[in-house]
């Protein structure tokens, strides 16, 4: 079946502009995650959605960052007033989930490479 898809694959924007990144998770996956990967570094957690529960926003680096998810489908990550330090690859992942918290593996999309000039 289809994997996690993200769009756009690349985005170049000018400092101060807003950008919106999109993630389509695997169908049936109730959990959705956003991560950021700066050049040469590991993944940095941003936000997590699980069904209708309140999202875990503990990783968002500033109030310029926000994300939404419609039900158990598409999610959008919005960065307002972009700064050069926002340049990174933004990765989305989805997974199944259980009430007991048993960790299922996360399936990652190809990422959106954001460059702020």
């Amino acid at each position, binding site marked *: 079946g289809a*994997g*996690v898809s993200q769009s756009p694959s690349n985005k170049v924007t000018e400092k101060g502009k807003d950008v919106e990144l999109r993630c389509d998770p695997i169908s049936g996956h109730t*959990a959705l*995650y956003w*991560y950021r990967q700066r050049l040469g*570094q*590991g*993944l*940095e*957690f941003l936000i*997590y959605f*699980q069904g209708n529960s309140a999202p*875990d926003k*503990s*990783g968002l680096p500033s109030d310029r960052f926000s994300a939404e998810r419609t039900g158990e489908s598409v999610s959008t990550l919005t960065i307002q007033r972009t700064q050069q330090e926002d340049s990174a690859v933004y*990765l989305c*992942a989805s997974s199944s*989930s259980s009430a007991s*918290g*048993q*960790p299922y*593996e*996360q*399936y*990652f*999309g*190809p*990422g959106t490479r954001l460059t702020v000039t």
Partner: protein
Amino acid sequence: AQSVAQPEDQVNVAEGNPLTVKCTYSVSGNPYLFWYVQYPNRGLQFLLKYITGDNLVKGSYGFEAEFNKSQTSFHLKKPSALVSDSALYFCAVRDGRTGRRALTFGSGTRLQVQP
């Protein structure tokens, strides 16, 4: 707080030789541990995970990892490396005691397998 350390930025190994990519972790409860691989211009792919049970976990592409609680380690291993194994490898942990579902990733280790 949970954390992961991958002490080697790069590991070089000759094709056919065994390989080890090191990972140590820190969590307050029981760890859930994962290895992912990232090939150039592609997303992360899941290799294997440890949740509970047998300390030796077998995964995709002939990889395995050994959970060592006393050393808080989860090293990735393969008996015979292939050139096609050359990629970036990430170890990740989740604390089984907290409700936080997100993974904490290490900084990654680049594996270079020479023919």
